[in-house]
């Protein structure tokens, strides 16, 4: 049941052998060791598995690995810059104490990457809506909102 798929992950073209029944989350974790991609609910409710596919934030637990053929996938591992510095969005999460246990953080950061990539600023209500596909079991929502607001302001403001 293995199949080779070709895709770009974090900017690098790669070929991986996936089980045809794998979710993209499983392929990223098991074939590529990208463990920033968390498996929380595995039914599209929590957003912990969020990655970008061709620039769009999707739940990788509800996305077949086979569908990623020919597409470009970005995970938190892909945010690292050449000098191994953190991405400004990651820094904003640290500045605003938006990380408690950290389980929801990679998914939220990938949604934030999509949001910031729109190149505009948002009201707090708009940001609430844009982040509504994530659950934080530590319930640190205010600081998470503050962090995304800060990142948007610093990068697009």
């Amino acid at each position, binding site marked *: 049941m293995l199949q080779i798929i070709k895709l770009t992950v974090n900017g690098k073209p790669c070929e991986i052998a996936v089980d045809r*029944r794998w979710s993209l989350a499983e392929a990223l974790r098991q074939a590529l060791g990208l463990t920033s991609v968390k498996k929380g609910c595995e039914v599209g409710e929590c957003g912990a598995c969020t990655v970008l596919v061709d620039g769009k934030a999707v739940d990788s637990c*509800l996305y077949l690995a086979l569908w990623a053929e020919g597409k470009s996938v970005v995970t938190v591992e892909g945010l690292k810059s050449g000098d191994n510095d953190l991405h400004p969005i990651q820094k904003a999460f640290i500045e605003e104490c938006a990380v408690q246990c950290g389980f929801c953080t990679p998914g939220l950061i990938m949604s934030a990457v999509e949001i910031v990539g729109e190149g505009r600023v948002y009201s707090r209500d708009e940001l609430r809506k844009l982040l509504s596909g994530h659950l934080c079991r530590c319930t640190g929502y205010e600081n998470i909102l503050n962090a995304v607001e800060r990142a948007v302001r610093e990068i697009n403001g």
Partner: protein
Amino acid sequence: MFDFENIVLAASVEEAVAALSANEKAIVISGGTDVLIKIREGKLAGCDLVSIHDIPELHGVRLTEDGCIHIGPTTTFAELTNSPVIMERIPVLGRAADTVGGPQIRAMGTVGGNISNGVTSADTATTLLNLEAELTLTSPAGERRVNVNDYYLGAGRVCLDHAELLTDICVKPENYQGFGGCYIKYAMRNAMDIATLGTSCLVKPGKGGVIDTLRLAFGVAAPVPMRARNTEQALTGKSYAEALEEIAGLVRGEITPRTSWRASREFRLQIAGENARRALEAAWAEAGGEV
């Protein structure tokens, strides 16, 4: 790992319907946000899949010269909401799509899947009923057209034969030009929640502030999304003021929602009447009707 047996990744409609007719067990998967959940729950465990996820001809929104708007069934909710054609001509449909789940689900779930799963709470279904969308169903034998109002057979069932694929959702100009619209999703949470009751209204104002055409549909008021045709008829030709006055009572006399763990029948009746009135008000304003 998902518990399915085989999967065919169809590259064209032809390939997809051929794969379906070759395998009686095969199920269509589009965005997968229902099918993959059902596989996880075990309801579809062990099934075979035919994926239409990446068939270019099934994707995107197109306006043709005759004013028809063709919506490819694999168009995602987010793509529908952000489509310039939809924003300009049927903004109510884009707003309805924008109430589904959360952002990631809206980037994955498709409008074709939303009506083909036969679910009463589907957030785009009521507006498509009001728009009298014409569906194209394609099988190895050819194509047939079905009005979306005739698509639903019962809870979870639509009139697709096994080897048939929904390949186009067409909205004709006479069903959107001059109309204003409003969709109200009543749910416990503002996001990531299924509708307790969905209300969609389209209205076209006539001369002298009367209702020229009214279309009203509800989700979760019956086993499948439904039009409130008696209410529509009773209010046609009435003044806007009269319609606003009478709509709630007419709706409560027409629909027969059930009690579920989400809400009681009485509560659903209450909000159906009230939201019909509010939806008419907003739709009338959007259409620029006289007040």
